[in-house]
């Protein structure tokens, strides 16, 4: 009897094997559970201290504040609608940013490949320099107060426009780097088959470039989501602004601002989770 031939391991199995074998769920998240438990106990004491017959001024105050901050006048709805506004701005700005970024990246790569579109390339360069060289808050205010100063227009749209224009500059750099990272031989192979530059770009270069930079693009999305918090500068009632409005109404900074922070944190953690899933899948199917 001979030993059975060793099982052939595919690349993905090998790569997988190098990932640390997962500990049991509870063990991995032990600190998360402890922190959650502390918060829960805290919340329960705050909520039920009268019923429990406890007389602790700190918890009583927290309880009153909580009711003022979120229950009275249905103020928690401010946060909810603020969150909606933040999400709308983020989605619109991301769409605009990707469109602008891709266009600019292609203009720059065309320039790099010697297919210069004189005037357009210059314009793109100015745009990238100015947008990346100035703070987004300043851009936001200029667009709202100067460019749309005398026209009545939805503030949410202005915010989406400003953040989209801003994000576009960063997305452009990401995608451009991704395109240039694709092996030169790919363009040559495409062209040698008789495909045009445009078709080769679209069918061969860009799919590879996007795959390479997907994690970086996702990072940009996360940054953008957090950055929209300055939309309050033009009095858009986004999530951050909603928290601030509650604070100025109730004079309690702690709960509303922590609540706002918690919502951002949960969203970012969710997105990060999605991103690492995508990254893992990309790595596994990595067919370079």
């Amino acid at each position: 009897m001979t030993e059975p031939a060793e099982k052939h391991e595919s690349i993905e199995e090998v790569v997988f094997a190098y990932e640390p074998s997962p500990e049991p769920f509870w063990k991995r998240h032990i600190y998360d559970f402890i922190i959650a438990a502390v918060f829960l106990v805290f919340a329960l004491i705050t909520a039920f201290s009268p019923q429990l017959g406890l007389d602790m001024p700190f918890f009583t105050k927290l309880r009153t504040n909580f009711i003022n901050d979120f229950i009275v006048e249905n103020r928690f709805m401010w946060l909810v609608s603020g969150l909606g506004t933040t999400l709308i701005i983020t989605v619109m700005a991301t769409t605009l940013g990707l469109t602008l970024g891709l266009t600019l990246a292609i203009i720059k790569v065309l320039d790099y490949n010697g297919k210069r579109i004189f005037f357009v390339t210059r314009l793109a360069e100015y745009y990238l320099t100015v947008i990346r060289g100035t703070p987004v808050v300043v851009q936001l205010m200029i667009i709202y107060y100067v460019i749309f100063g005398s026209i009545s227009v939805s503030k949410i749209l202005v915010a989406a426009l400003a953040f989209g224009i801003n994000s576009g500059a960063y997305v452009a750099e990401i995608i451009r780097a991704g395109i240039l990272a694709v092996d030169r031989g790919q363009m040559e192979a495409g062209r040698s088959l008789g495909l045009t530059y445009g078709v080769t770009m679209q069918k061969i270069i860009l799919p590879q470039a996007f795959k390479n930079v997907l994690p970086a693009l996702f990072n940009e999305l996360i940054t953008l989501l957090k950055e929209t918090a300055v939309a309050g500068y033009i009095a858009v009632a986004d999530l951050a602004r909603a928290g601030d409005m509650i604070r100025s109404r109730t004079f309690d900074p702690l709960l509303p601002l922590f609540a706002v922070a918690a919502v951002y944190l949960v969203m970012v953690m969710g997105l990060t989770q999605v991103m690492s899933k995508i990254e893992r899948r990309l790595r596994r199917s990595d067919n370079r």
Partner: protein
Amino acid sequence: MITVEKLCKNFGSLSVLKNIDAEIKNGEKIVIVGPSGSGKSTFLRCLNLLDQPSAGRIMVDDVEITAEDCDINSVRQKMGMVFQHFNLFPHLTVVENIILAPYQLKKLNKDDAIKRAYELLDRVGLREKANEYPIKLSGGQKQRIAIARALAMNPEIMLFDEPTSALDPEMIGEVLDVMQELAEEGMTMVVVTHEMGFARKVASRVMFMDEGRIVEQGTPDEVFGNPKNDRTKLFLSKVLDH
């Protein structure tokens, strides 16, 4: 089929091709040999304008491809090229690699393109790899797929730039076999290679290049058996000793 007149190519101040004249006839199998840096790749890449000539004229079937208004894409469709590093498209499966160009260029509809792809896969002996991604293939398999991909456009001429140089020795044979079959079927071929055995067997003409010039050319017997130029002799003595 291809006429080259006074072809020059400079990279900046470096002169890589110096006044090359050449004529490639239908059905010829040209093997280009020469030391590293002598301009073999550049010459080959000028033939389909992957490198833009600095001066001179290149005619392909009476089309002057060096002319300003030449539609190079349609000329390239009948000139297949195989690269040293395969350059398969990593994000596409083997079949997708092969059908991309004929389908995009509307040479074939999708069904016919796939049918043709499988014929070509049979021909290079890799039908069972049709739905694999290139990463899963060995070097020799990759190169055979690259040849199939180029053949999918039904080219009239095939250009090979050191197709076996990046391969492990045990895989060279399988690629050369495919190339030899292609030659026997009458394909016009221009091959840059260091495989002297292949050159002897397949070449109808050997060109020896050195420092941007075609220094000597003739049948394999003439060039290998009785080289006239000193540089050819020196080069051959180095490569044939191994």
